[in-house]
């Protein structure tokens, strides 16, 4: 019996082939997601607000995870936000160097639970920085998270 390391010395000696599983997807944003994304078109960030406990969710949920009741009320939060954490990416998905490093921030909003991960920039950007979203021009918004270009130091 061969030792495990002797079993395979060259992949080319094996019969092998490539194949792919050809999936693509069309997602729905959902009840709360529709409200959230439509808010972007108006330049607003919406939270859903539980009428039982008062908790406000960003991104909005159609139900309160604590009270487990449906949420029908939506309220605007921000635009003022605070950077809770930062990350700087130097490579893309495939490990190729980016033309310039990209900074991602996790930002939170006063009075809301949760927050958003998005691009961020600005002088003195760091944890605790006060930032605000910079939206695309109104006519160019399509109702996605990319309607916010980035969060910028105020």
């Amino acid at each position, binding site marked *: 019996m061969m030792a495990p390391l002797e079993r395979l010395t060259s992949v080319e000696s094996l019969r092998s082939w490539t194949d792919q599983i*050809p999936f693509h*997807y*069309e*997602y729905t944003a959902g009840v*709360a997601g529709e409200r959230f994304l439509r808010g972007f078109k108006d330049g607003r960030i919406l939270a859903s607000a539980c009428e039982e406990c008062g908790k406000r969710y960003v991104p909005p*949920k159609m*139900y309160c995870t*604590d009270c*487990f009741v449906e949420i029908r009320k939506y309220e605007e939060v921000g635009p003022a936000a605070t950077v809770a954490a930062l990350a700087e990416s130097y490579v893309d998905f495939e490990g190729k160097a980016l033309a310039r490093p990209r900074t991602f921030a996790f930002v939170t909003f006063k009075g809301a639970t949760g927050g958003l991960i998005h691009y961020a920039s600005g002088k003195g950007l760091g944890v605790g920085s006060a930032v605000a979203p910079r939206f695309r021009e109104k006519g160019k918004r399509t109702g996605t998270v990319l309607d916010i270009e980035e969060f910028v130091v105020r």
Partner: protein
Amino acid sequence: MKRVAVIGAGMTKFRRRMLETGREMSFEASRMAMDSAGMEIKDVESVVLGTAPDAFDGVHMKGEYLMDGAGGTNRPYSRVYVGGGTGVFVPVAGWWHVASGQFDTCLVVGEEKMSPLHPHPQYAFWSIFDHTTERPLGVTLLWIFSLEMRRYMHVHKVREEDIALVSVKNKGNALDHPCAQLPARITVDDVMKSEPICLPVKRLDVSPTSDGAAAVMLASEDVARKYTDDPVWIDGVGWNVDTQYWTNRDLYYPRYVEEAARMAYKMAKIDNPKKQIDFAEVYDPFDYKELHHMEGVLLADKGEAPKLTREGVTQRDGDLPINPSGGLLGVGNPIAAAGVMKVCELYWQLKGEAGKRQVKKEVDRGLAQAWGDLLQVGTVITMKR
């Protein structure tokens, strides 16, 4: 071992495409089951969720993704998965939670959102086949079903027209189900003349792909009696998996379903299922599968199910109503949710709350069964008033 009761049930509509995300559908079904039981989230001690391949929703680790919609946050929560058999396996897993004495309540949720997947959910099924011997042929799931249907027809000399009667019955039953996706008044001729997909399987022999969720609330006897004077009991559970090589078993008979049923019958002390089970929700993603599974759960002798169907025994007003809900053929087939829908139907029928779907005869015990994995798992539950 503790006795386990079902004390609430709920489900969303089943549709080709729902606006609601999988989480939101899970919430709607869970909330309905809790409302039906008279419970709040603080009363839920554990949660089990069932959902089929991540590839359908297009979200990897779908169990985690769906968790907060199923009330699982900050609770003992788990996802179980045995392919198409998942929908009846989830309440079985829920039963473990309560029967073991570990928890007094368990919320059981089934979810599926198949509509995101393009070009068609068939592609997810295609990739379950062996990449060396089967996938190069461009095999679809329909091929396998067609081979199985033909084998069943050949061994028992069953006519396609008799199989079509199942589709006519179930789509007709679904006319009375408020959540149904494909209720219809059709004839055997309509089925026979429907589009050939992979003969002998034709368009109207097949259930649709769907989005939907369904849930039931389980409780131990002590807790159940605080909420209702009239609980419905889970008195038998069974599951069994045959070899994953579909080439290595005779397709005409689902012996793994029989093993699962025998396990449930032993627990429920059922020695004559034909007499002791009053109605059943057997798994019917295709019309011939209802017949296959009636025989597998021993409610018909081998080859006898088509005859019972032809004689009207399996109609809602017959001696052995089968799929009074309308089944997957009529209500829809969001995989894991479809099986839980069958368990919901047992609950509503046994409580006398099935409305226009209520079977004519007095019912004390019902059976739900699902089937799946690589065409080789059987999951069975029996429930009793």
